């Protein structure tokens, strides 16, 4: 461009000078680029460090569970609780039979009232025979219950003393730990305080002698009980109804099973070894494969994750069964079939669902869904459905219906992305060969996007298994392994979940107690599941990504 000669041209540096010129920093000697780089670097570093610290803390608190639970199980054995539980099983088995008799009675009463049309008073007189039998049957356990009561008192007392002693040891250690570094006066005071504490050292071996000494008594009582039961069964009442008679015969079977159990109890108790050490693996297994989660019990706490894990899994599976067809089908529709105007409407609408706070969904579940489901389940025309009518308003299905709602946006969005990422050229090639739109979709586009769809489903699973509020409010919160004996009806049982238990109990447990650490262990399990799900999803996407040439 020809410069006009009137205007003075700007001074121009030689290339040599420009190339070697030092760039002046404007922020503490940093140039703009460097400054921005350090800001981002700092942010990234902070988030990584914070995440690492959180993970570490959780793991640290969780790992402490193992030695504490080990101690818990050790006391269970030393104080003889395990020994008493061997005997308790027998008593529990007996009461199961008594309950069975009660159910037979209920059936009989129902027959008398509804089939024979008797008045309640008359029905009661007809039942008098049976009631006398049932009462005598129940009475056969009285001796054992008394014995068990005595044993329970002995051992709980022992455990209580051990607990007090442990607390004192802890207090003493706290005083002693505070001495180094304290001013001399205070140190002296702490020392005297520590000195007056004399925690009891319990001689478990000696203390449980009375317990062991009761064995002959138990054996004698058991022998008497078996004789009484035999005599009683010989004069068991007979019914006119065939079904009831069959049930009574079944009782005979139960009793002979019970006899076997009773005969095994005393030898088992004799074989019990108080001094057998508790293995570390036992402490872990009691958590990983424990079938019971019992806390704050006067007797013995158990922290087995199985009921919670099974509950979470059951809910997640039901939720996915609902969410996968809905989410994937709508993704296919929106990405392949819908007109642009429908896309504009449907996509934000589905994604909007994830904006509903889960506590609101849970509230909706309690207030509306649970009740509606129960009403529907009570309709006589639906009685063929397994599990209907539902006994509980809040159960795994109630929660799963709402969780499905939360998983649908995740599955929908990711599956839709996967479908949209299928190269357009595949679609064109298929159509140009004379395929219909449906054929193109089913044979080309969905298979090509399958890895993405599977990843979407996995992440939907992650979303469901990690969800807390909805399950806490709507799953029924009964801590028990779902009873698969109910067949498909299992999905209408109330369950508790891993997330729910943490939310429910974490606020109430003393810090660093065994219970507290058990909850952290549950948290770690959740963490590992999420990690696994995400890792798998990524792996699948990477492994099967279509290389668009």
């Amino acid at each position, binding site marked *: 461009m020809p410069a006009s000669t009137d205007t003075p041209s700007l001074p121009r540096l030689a290339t040599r000078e420009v190339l070697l010129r030092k760039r002046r920093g404007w922020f503490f000697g940093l140039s703009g680029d460097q400054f921005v780089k350090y800001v981002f670097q700092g942010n990234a570093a902070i988030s990584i460090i914070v995440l690492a610290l959180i993970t570490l803390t959780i793991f640290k608190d969780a790992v402490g569970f193992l030695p504490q639970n080990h101690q818990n199980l050790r006391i269970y054995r030393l104080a003889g609780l395990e020994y008493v539980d061997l005997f308790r099983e027998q008593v529990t088995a007996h009461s199961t039979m008594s309950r069975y008799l009660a159910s037979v009675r209920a059936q009989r009463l129902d027959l008398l009232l509804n089939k024979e049309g008797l008045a309640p008073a008359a029905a009661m007189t007809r039942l008098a025979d049976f009631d006398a039998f049932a009462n005598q049957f129940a009475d056969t356990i009285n001796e054992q219950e008394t014995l068990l009561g005595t044993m329970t008192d002995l051992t709980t007392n022992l455990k209580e003393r051990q607990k007090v002693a442990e607390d004192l040891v802890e207090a003493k250690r706290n005083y002693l730990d505070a001495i180094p570094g304290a001013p001399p006066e205070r140190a002296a005071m702490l020392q005297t305080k520590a000195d007056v504490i004399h925690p009891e050292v319990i001689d478990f071996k000696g203390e449980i002698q009375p317990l062991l000494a009761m064995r002959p008594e138990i054996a004698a009582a058991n022998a008497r009980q078996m004789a009484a039961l035999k005599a009683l069964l010989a004069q068991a009442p007979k019914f006119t109804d065939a079904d009831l008679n069959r049930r009574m015969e079944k009782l005979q079977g139960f009793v002979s099973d019970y006899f076997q159990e009773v005969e095994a109890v005393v030898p088992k108790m004799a074989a019990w070894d108080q001094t057998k050490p508790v293995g570390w693996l036992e402490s872990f297994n009691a958590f990983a494969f424990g079938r019971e989660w019992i806390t704050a019990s006067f007797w013995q706490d158990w922290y087995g994750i199985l009921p919670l894990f099974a509950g979470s899994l059951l809910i997640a599976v039901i939720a996915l069964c609902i969410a996968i067809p809905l989410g994937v089908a709508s993704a296919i529709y929106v990405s392949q079939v819908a007109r*642009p105007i429908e896309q504009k409407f449907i996509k934000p609408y589905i994604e909007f669902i994830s904006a509903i706070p889960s506590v609101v969904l849970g509230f909706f579940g309690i207030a509306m869904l649970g009740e509606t489901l129960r009403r529907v389940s009570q309709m006589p025309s639906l009685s063929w459905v397994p599990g209907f009518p539902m006994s509980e308003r809040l159960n795994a299905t109630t929660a799963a219906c709402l969780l499905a709602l939360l998983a649908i946006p995740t599955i929908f969005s990711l599956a839709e992305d996967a479908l949209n990422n299928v*190269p357009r*050229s*595949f*679609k*064109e*090639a*298929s*159509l*140009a*060969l*004379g*395929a*219909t739109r449906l*054929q193109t979709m089913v*044979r*080309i586009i969905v*298979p*090509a996007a399958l890895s993405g769809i599977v990843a979407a489903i996995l992440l939907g699973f992650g979303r469901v298994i990690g969800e807390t509020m909805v399950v806490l409010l709507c799953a029924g919160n009964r801590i028990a392994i779902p009873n698969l004996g109910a067949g498909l009806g299992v999905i209408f049982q109330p369950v508790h979940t891993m997330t729910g238990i943490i939310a429910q109990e974490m606020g109430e447990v003393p810090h660093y107690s065994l219970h507290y650490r058990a909850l952290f262990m549950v948290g770690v399990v959740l963490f590992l599941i999420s990690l696994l799900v995400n890792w798998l999803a990524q792996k699948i996407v990477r492994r099967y990504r*279509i*290389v668009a*040439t």
Partner: protein
Amino acid sequence: MVTTLAMPEPVAPPAAPRPVSVAPAAPVNPAARAVIEIDDVDFCYGASKALHDITLNIQERQVTAFIGPSGCGKSTLLRCLNRMNDLIDGAKVTAGQIRIDGVNIYDPRVDVIELRKRVGMVFQKSNPFPKSIYDNITYGLRIQGQKNKARLDEVVERSLRGAALWDEVKDRLHESALGMSGGQQQRLCIARAIAVEPEIILMDEPCSALDPIATAKVEELIHGLKKQFTIVIVTHNMQQAARCSDRTAFFYLGKLIEYADTRTIFMNPANPQTEAYVSGRFG
């Protein structure tokens, strides 16, 4: 089916060999029948008009090349011939007719699925499905309900031989098609197109992504294919048009400037714009 629309010739049964017409030494065969008749066609993408008043006839079993600078509408016209433009929202033929075997393919009664079975297409970028070579070739037949394994095997071999690919891939028919080289992939796409035995094959710049050796192979293939098929090819490469086509149409800004046999277009064009383009002075 197109046959239901009173197509003059019934389709030959697939197994029977087609009558092979000897390719004429001279590029023009005056006796050849016009299989595609394009009459006064206007085409719009929404409000913008992409084709103005195009009229040309395409002869049976000849290679017809569409040339012209980018954006001249040659690909658009090609995609009108099997109605691939239907996939684009707001794109439509606003005037005129395109007749194949005398049937207006934009007639509402025309089954577009059947049309595309008769008018195959090979795309600019090779686009094999992420399936095995075998499944790629048989896709077109399988969606028509062909399940007979022996028949499918036969078609795979015939199509791959037809696309000069058989010897290269016969030992790995069940491996993924995505593992082939670019040129092989494009020939696979041609094999896939001829497996459904169309009348007409449309090729949209089939060699633009290929190296010269692969290009030469495809061109050779085109030369062989015209014994059986009517081929319409869009190309940017003028040497390619000159080498492998019988007739050439030159488009510019959505208008057909000149349409004649290839020798005339390249040696003795009537229109100065054509002359400027083929001699490389613009475009």
